[in-house]
């Protein structure tokens, strides 16, 4: 059966046949595969790393070296890209989901006929085929979703006869593993995982109520399930990240978003600079201070010769002192010297005197030797906060207020030493108890569009924008200003190395992935969840550079419509039966009722949990987000059909009539599949007339060349 599916779905055309980059997501995934091949670190907010790693595995087996520029749709692959093996894995997963559909319906205890129907429907669903033939992840996600469901059903069915047998353990573990793989590919997998957990919880509740089992036996059952369905997935998920971080050990394009400590743990990049810096910050240390929050952009505390304008555009006045900003690029003006207020020297003693939590320090700007200062003057863009400047003595009644108390946020003891990279510190102004903060606003032209730094008086609590860490650090040696400037220009070099633990790196990476925001809120082919059910939208993946052969993500509309209809029928019938049973009228025998409920809970439930949450999401949505839900809906279709034929058709005549109808309907679906084939495989160039004839809905965007 699998071979058959394989040939029908994939092989008629070679997988590599569109030897072009065929969709906007292939562009992204391709980039990530290249990064894996070159082992460069990257950050992708769209999902956990397993999916990309699987694609990369395909590339690795095909001998891909990562040298291809994935920059535009329709670019032709160069000969070093093993297109076939890159696309093999999704195709394999897509083909495997056909026999699995069969197995699931069979394990739900429906007839071979219904099971075969489910497999055939999955087989001729155009959208699933398109998605499986390209280097995309939905088909892999669907595969793991189905696998989780199938193995859970197998578990349920072996539960009655031989619990704790080898096969029972196998299926139990496989459920957990499949769930974690689904979550590992896309966050969406969580929905199926929760559904499986929910069904398992209901079954476990029945198990607790089963008085034929001893207490110990029940406890064993519960423990086994907890381990397999809760502990194993967590371990697996961590494992994915572990492999991901082991693979990506070199600094790459997204370093800047991560904290200094994380960057320092990658090869190259910041690590090359910070390697060998002294660990403990001492009086006289020269440091650069990076804001921990790093939004809107990562930046360093900065100052330069220019002063604040005497009067701002809106008429407010300033202190006219030297500007202090946050600057997103490395610059010699980012260097500051930590000074002991009681002494005049700007060099490190030997032995160095480390700075500790709670110490009072002054910060001297390296290039201008002015002291970081704040006072009761409104900041340029945030009038509720204090202005921060480097103090110039104009000899007017505005004294210097340049003492700062060091507050190490992540300290373990109250005498903790200020450490390079590791310590996250706040600077609390001694006179006004204002806290040095990045406000996030861009200064106007007089401030060179750098970011505003303010002293926050009314601190309403802990916020990362008030926290800074030392990134580059060295002990200052030069007594004279000229010498010191030279020293500041020279790169830091010393020896000492540190590493972050895996859990620290994992939690930071996971947090950044969840919070990184992409601002592309609009896309030509984005759609809303309501468009999906009725297939009011499509996605044009690819157009041949010269002919009008094209690939679209476009579903088999007969299947979509009847699957939605089946869901409605199922829900109505279920409500009807429930109401009747409540009045003690049982239309169905007990075993077929249980079968009917379980099938609904898994298939209709699978559709609901994979579809409804999208209404609450604010990210850009595409038609392919619906495919996992659709797959479950398709599984429900033969279940409902068999139920109608078994229980609602009273006579033999009705039954045969119904079967004839089903056959007619199925051939209709086949016909639609065949008609849409050219848009699914992109193997045939159609004339504009034929293309226009395929545009069955106004809203479908089919590409027609104006000049052939």
């Amino acid at each position, binding site marked *: 059966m699998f071979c058959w599916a394989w040939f029908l779905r994939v092989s008629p055309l070679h997988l590599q046949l569109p030897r072009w980059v065929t969709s906007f997501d292939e562009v992204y995934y391709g980039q990530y595969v290249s990064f894996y091949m070159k082992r460069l670190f990257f950050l992708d907010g769209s999902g956990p790393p397993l999916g990309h790693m699987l694609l990369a595995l395909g590339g690795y087996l095909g001998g891909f070296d990562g040298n291809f520029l994935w920059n535009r749709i329709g670019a032709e692959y160069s000969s070093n890209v093993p297109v076939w093996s890159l696309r093999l894995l999704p195709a394999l997963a897509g083909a495997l989901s056909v026999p699995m559909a069969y197995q699931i319906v069979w394990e739900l205890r429906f007839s071979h006929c219904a099971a075969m129907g489910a497999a055939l429907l999955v087989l001729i669903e155009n959208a699933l085929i398109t998605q499986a033939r390209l280097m995309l992840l939905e088909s892999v996600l669907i595969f793991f979703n189905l696998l989780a469901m199938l193995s859970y059903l197998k578990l349920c069915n072996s539960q009655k006869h031989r619990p704790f047998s080898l096969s029972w353990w196998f299926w139990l573990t496989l459920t957990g593993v499949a769930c974690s793989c689904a979550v590992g590919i896309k966050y969406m997998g969580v929905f199926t995982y929760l559904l499986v957990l929910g069904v398992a919880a209901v079954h476990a509740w029945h198990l607790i109520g089963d*008085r034929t089992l001893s207490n110990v036996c029940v406890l064993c059952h519960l423990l086994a399930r907890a381990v397999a369905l809760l502990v194993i997935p967590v371990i697996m998920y961590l494992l994915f990240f572990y492999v991901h971080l082991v693979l990506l050990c070199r600094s790459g394009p997204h370093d800047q978003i991560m904290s200094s400590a994380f960057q320092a743990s990658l090869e190259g990049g910041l690590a090359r600079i910070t390697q060998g810096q002294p660990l403990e910050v001492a009086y006289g240390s020269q440091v650069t201070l990076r804001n921990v929050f790093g939004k809107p952009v990562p930046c360093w505390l900065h100052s330069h010769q220019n002063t604040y304008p005497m009067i701002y555009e809106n008429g407010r006045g300033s202190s006219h002192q030297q500007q202090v900003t946050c600057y997103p690029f490395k610059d010699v003006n980012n260097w500051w010297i930590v000074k002991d207020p009681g002494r005049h020297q700007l060099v490190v003693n030997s032995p160095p005197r480390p700075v500790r939590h709670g110490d009072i320090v002054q910060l001297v700007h390296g290039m201008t030797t002015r002291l970081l200062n704040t006072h009761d003057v409104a900041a340029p863009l945030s009038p509720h906060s204090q202005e921060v400047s480097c103090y110039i003595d104009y000899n007017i009644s505005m004294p210097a207020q340049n003492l700062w108390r060091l507050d190490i946020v992540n300290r373990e003891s109250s005498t903790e030493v200020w450490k390079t990279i590791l310590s996250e510190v706040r600077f609390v102004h001694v006179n006004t108890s204002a806290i040095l903060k990045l406000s996030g606003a861009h200064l106007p032209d007089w401030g060179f569009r750098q970011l505003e730094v303010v002293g926050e008086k009314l601190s309403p609590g802990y916020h990362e924008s008030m926290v800074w860490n030392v990134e580059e650090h060295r002990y200052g040696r030069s007594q004279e200003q000229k010498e010191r400037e030279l020293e500041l220009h020279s790169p830091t070099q010393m020896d000492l190395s540190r590493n972050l633990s895996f859990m620290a790196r994992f939690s930071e990476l996971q947090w950044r992935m969840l919070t990184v925001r992409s601002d592309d809120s609009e896309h030509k082919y984005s759609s809303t969840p309501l468009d999906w059910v009725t297939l009011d939208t499509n996605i044009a993946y690819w157009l041949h550079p010269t002919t009008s052969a094209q690939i679209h993500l476009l579903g088999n509309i007969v299947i979509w419509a009847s699957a939605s209809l089946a869901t409605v029928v199922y829900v109505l019938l279920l409500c009807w039966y429930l109401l009747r049973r409540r009045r003690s009228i049982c239309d169905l025998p007990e075993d077929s009722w249980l079968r009917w409920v379980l099938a609904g809970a898994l298939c209709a439930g699978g559709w609901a949990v994979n579809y409804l949450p999208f209404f609450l999401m604010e990210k850009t949505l595409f038609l392919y987000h619906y495919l996992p839900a659709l797959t479950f809906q398709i599984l429900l279709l033969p279940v409902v059909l068999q139920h109608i034929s078994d229980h609602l058709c009273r006579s033999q005549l009705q039954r045969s009539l119904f079967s004839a109808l089903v056959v007619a309907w199925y051939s209709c679906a086949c016909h639609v599949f065949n008609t849409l084939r050219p848009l699914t495989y992109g193997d045939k160039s159609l004339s504009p007339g034929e293309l226009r004839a395929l545009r069955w809905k106004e809203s479908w965007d089919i590409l027609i060349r104006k000049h052939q």
Partner: protein
Amino acid sequence: MLLLSSWCSERRDPERGSDFAGSCCAWDETHFGKMGSYYINRTFFFDVHPPLGKMLIGLAGYLSGYDGTFSFQKPGDKYEHHNYMGMRGFCASLGSLLVPFAYLTVLELSKSLPAALLTAALLTFDTGCLTLSQYILLDPILMFFIMAAMLSMVKYNSCADRPFSAPWWFWLSLTGINLAGALGVKFVGLFIIVQVGWNTISDLWHLFGDLSLSLVTVGKHLTARILCLIVLPLALYTATYAVHFMVLNKSGPGDGFFSSAFQARLSGNNLHNASIPEHLAYGSVITVKNLRMAIGYLHSHRHLYPEGVGARQQQVTTYLHKDYNNLWIIKKHNTNSDPLDPSFPVEFVRHGDIIRLEHKETSRNLHSHYHEAPLTRKHYQVTGYGINGTGDSNDFWRIEVVNRKFGNRIKVLRSRIRFIHLVTGCVLGSSGKVLPKWGWEQLEVTCTPYLKETLNSIWNVEDHINPKLPNISLDVLQPSFPEILLESHMVMIRGNNGLKPKDNEFTSKPWHWPINYQGLRFSGINDTDFRVYLLGNPVVWWLNLLSIALYLLSGSIIAVAMQRGARLPPEVEGLSQVLLRGGGQLLLGWMLHYFPFFLMGRILYFHHYFPAMLFSSMLTGVLWDTLLRLCAWSLASSSLARGIHAVGIVSLLLGAAYSFYLFHPLAYGMVGPLAQDPRSPMAGLRWLESWDF
């Protein structure tokens, strides 16, 4: 009853005291007090909350002789001679009713006096509830309706054995009325509606399964509930809006948020009773308004886009205020003759026509081209181009009415129109992003290549001047009540979604709330000010938190034991029923009023937790009483058991009272140094670093 009234007075007296002491408006009083004044002055305003709460505040002010003249400018202003006591007193009395309501609810659910007393004590001694209900805010009103709905629901549940009797009807319809009240104050009232709905559905399901009842009786039950819990609240809710629109009939600060047709209702607005030509014709001078809220009118002015921002041509923006620079002349694309020349016949603009829009003040044409827009890089730039109306083919726009076929005339105010650029095929729209200083902080106008219909790219014609056409009165254009209702809801929902936190700001997160992580400063900052700080009584709140954990633990132990078929003694059986049924309802209430906040994208504040806190305090009362009884039962004989139970309850009561004594300055206001100073009245009480009082 005596007991209850004593509570009321006890609760109100100190509040009265503080009212006199703190004669300055605190925190959100500036909003809601101002809105009360608007009702008294009958000026139209816009707020993201439904109107009932503010209407009640306005009414209280009106009845107590407040004249609506205080400006409520900024926190800390003195009320001076203005009579604000009515409004504060009204909120405070609703707030003080929460205690008896909670008492009665718990009494009904647990049938145990100590549990009810404990709950009442927890709420009485909570500084947070006290602070919140002594000012002019919506929260006491909201909490009043929520608790009243809960109480009447519990009451009618206990009338279930006498269906269709007078008290049954009374409590059922009272539930409906309170639901309408809760929803009418804030949309958060939806959560209590969900809870009542859930209770009703399970109730009906239970009745439906009772085979001794005929289907007709079940049908009667169903109809009664539909009438009292759906029809009645909806009618009342709509009625509050009817009153709202009737009272507010003068133009005010909220006009710009609403559509042109809506503004025509308000006296003082320039669209009110105006008469203008109905159909658009060539040569008309018009203003064009974007249909999305708070975008404004299509605008241009004699300033160019700066160097490096697309082409250096005249800026086109949208602007919320009415101004001469919003005027545009509609012209034919191919001739430059003056259509107002009396020798030409009037020619109407029709759907699908190719037109040119000339800016009246500067005589430049609305223009677009393949340059990227200043802020939204994927869209095209829109500029003013040409001299005295002569430009190029990039000035041509096709005017289309949404959902209309070809050939129809275009109506002022009513037609929803789009402008499609002829050369590039893009649609004129506003991105809603604020331009930098060079654009005078007006909003960006772009031409978007994405043709999907969004409100950003749909416009309507508002002012219309054409001397050759007859003016008609706008009265016929006034929208019907359902339309107004729908529009004001859309505007409110969009307003709520627009309240997004900024990146670099500290915001309150839902997980902060139950642990009382951080309070909210009501008034006063420096050590010389009179300071009031909204913070829950930490002892009460942490006890609540502990109780929820204990409840989950004990509840699941009992549930599993029952599922395993363990045989419980009758006494324990009864107690576990109280714990599972009554406690379950309260836990559901707590979850419904708390968890949805995790999903909300809007900006959140500490005071959003208070409705949930009421439920968790009631749960605490039920739980500790039941647990102490269980403990006492399992340990000892009956007299000792009673002793253990009494000692437990009394010690909890005393603990709450003592902690209130410690923390009461938070609510009643404190003067003097901040808490880190040993001389402060709150010295040593700053148990968490994050409390900044």
